[in-house]
């Protein structure tokens, strides 16, 4: 991994596979033990800096740090000096003076995590930056899918709902395609980002089913549809929350009632679909029918469980991988380069 996790684009497919293998092997079963804690990050400090409301992301980052034995400090913007007018830069510089090892940041503005990374020596994890990205959600979603489907290659997934305002959608469109999945976006035109072409979308006629069109768009297998009919052809539905709090001052939908009538997903849409995911929090009766929210066809709680293991793996690998890089650089400087391969090969004799 790189120094920071700001975008899902910071990771290659191999990085993702390796990171999620760590989550599965080292951390998934940890929560089932009586002693849900390992000493791995003992003495390290993690600061969770949240400028937006959050339940699962903030709880899972806090628990992840604690279960790795790090000291975890939670800063909520509404109860901190931010309310006194401190800028993000000054807050970051102040926090950096405590020498944290990891800063987790959630912020309503795009690019906030990258901005924080410029002013701290800590590893920075983007826990959601406005309508930008949410890479840890993307990773836990890929993890949840891996637990259900052995091979993600060629898996067809429809992302349905308020794509325009969704940082989850932005990260997942990139991440799912990285893993070889075929992505269809299903939304009314008003809830699709204008620049969706940059993500490799081959736009279909309104209401038509998505089709595999090799060479379509920028050669990507990303399709757009404006009707739930497109769900007939997919393996997985990824539902998004209607982000009403971001709709203020805009005219994105004719009416919520019309959206519900045309785009709410329920059990009746699951004919060929195997699983339904949702990043939470769900709005029952808006994007998801109550019966579907209560059905075992959805993976919502598995996603929550995965989130903890994946976030532990991310913190662990950020620290360990950078230590490897530092050790490698130091060894190269000392030996005038060469021969780290031999050292790695014989490791079991060292302990």
């Amino acid at each position: 991994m790189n120094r920071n996790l700001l975008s899902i684009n910071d990771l290659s497919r191999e990085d993702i596979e390796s990171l999620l293998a760590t989550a599965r092997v080292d951390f998934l079963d940890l929560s089932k033990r009586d002693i849900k804690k390992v000493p791995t990050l003992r003495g390290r400090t993690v600061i969770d800096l949240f400028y937006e409301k959050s339940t699962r992301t903030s709880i899972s980052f806090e628990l992840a740090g604690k279960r790795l034995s790090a000291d975890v400090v939670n800063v909520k913007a509404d109860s901190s000096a931010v309310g006194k007018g401190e800028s993000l830069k000054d807050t970051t510089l102040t926090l950096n003076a405590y020498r944290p090892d990891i800063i987790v940041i959630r912020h309503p503005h795009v690019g906030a995590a990258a901005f924080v990374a410029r002013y701290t020596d800590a590893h920075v994890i983007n826990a959601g930056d406005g309508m930008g990205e949410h890479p840890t959600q993307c990773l836990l979603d890929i993890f949840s899918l891996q637990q259900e489907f052995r091979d993600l290659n060629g898996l067809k997934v429809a992302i349905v709902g308020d794509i325009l305002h969704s940082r989850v959608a932005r990260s997942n469109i990139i991440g799912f395609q990285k893993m070889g999945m075929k992505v269809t976006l299903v939304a009314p035109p008003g809830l699709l980002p204008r620049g969706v072409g940059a993500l490799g979308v081959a736009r279909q006629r309104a209401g038509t089913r998505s089709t595999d069109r090799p060479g379509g768009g920028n050669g990507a297998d990303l399709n757009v549809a404006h009707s739930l009919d497109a769900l007939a052809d997919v393996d997985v539905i990824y539902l998004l929350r209607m982000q009403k709090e971001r709709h203020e001052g805009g005219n994105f939908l004719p009416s919520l009632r019309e959206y519900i009538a045309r785009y709410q997903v329920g059990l009746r849409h699951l004919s060929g679909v195997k699983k339904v995911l949702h990043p939470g929090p769900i709005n029952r009766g808006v994007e998801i029918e109550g019966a579907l929210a209560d059905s075992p066809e959805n993976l919502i709680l598995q996603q929550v469980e995965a989130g903890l293991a994946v976030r532990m793996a991310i913190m662990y690998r950020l620290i360990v991988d950078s230590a490897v890089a530092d050790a490698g650089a130091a060894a190269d400087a000392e030996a005038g380069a060469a021969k780290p391969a031999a050292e790695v090969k014989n490791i079991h004799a060292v302990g």
Partner: protein
Amino acid sequence: MSGVFVKTVVSADQLGRTIVRIAHEILERDQGLGRLAFVGIHTRGAHLAHRLARLIEQFAGQEIAVGELDISLYRDDVAARGSLTVRSRLAQPEIKGTNLPFSIDDMTIVLVDDVLFTGRTIRAAIDALFDYGRPSCIQLAVLVDRGHRELPIRPDFVGKNLPTSQGERINVRLSEVDGEDEIVLEATREGVES
């Protein structure tokens, strides 16, 4: 790999007989086989643990529980040399984690590893075990003791004492992972000269 000197110090036959001897010693010492379990440290310690359990089953007709322990999360050098271990472990196509399919409470646990060197791995393994339960007793069986302990840890069962210099390495090769059984001594030229 210039400047490296390699020598087989224990052959496949010798290695087989050594493991048989360790199994007999464990049988001799540990009377209550019903409360005995092996816990092997990944990767080669785990294979050795399974071999020992099979042998004891042959000799005494009693099945022995076997678990596998991954100590990466308990290492004392996450931010230093040990991170190389983490990377090489993650580079393996099928990495395995800890698997203890039984309660270790009130059991006599025989920890099994291939090479005992500084003792730090064993320290980590003991810490890890205590997070899974409270064994009544922990013993240590190793195929090779190469000296250079940095902690007050000593083995209860030793296959072979191989005094080495710091510059040398002991490479235990097992058929399950390496295709053949043997113990190899590797030394860099500097190691030999010093």
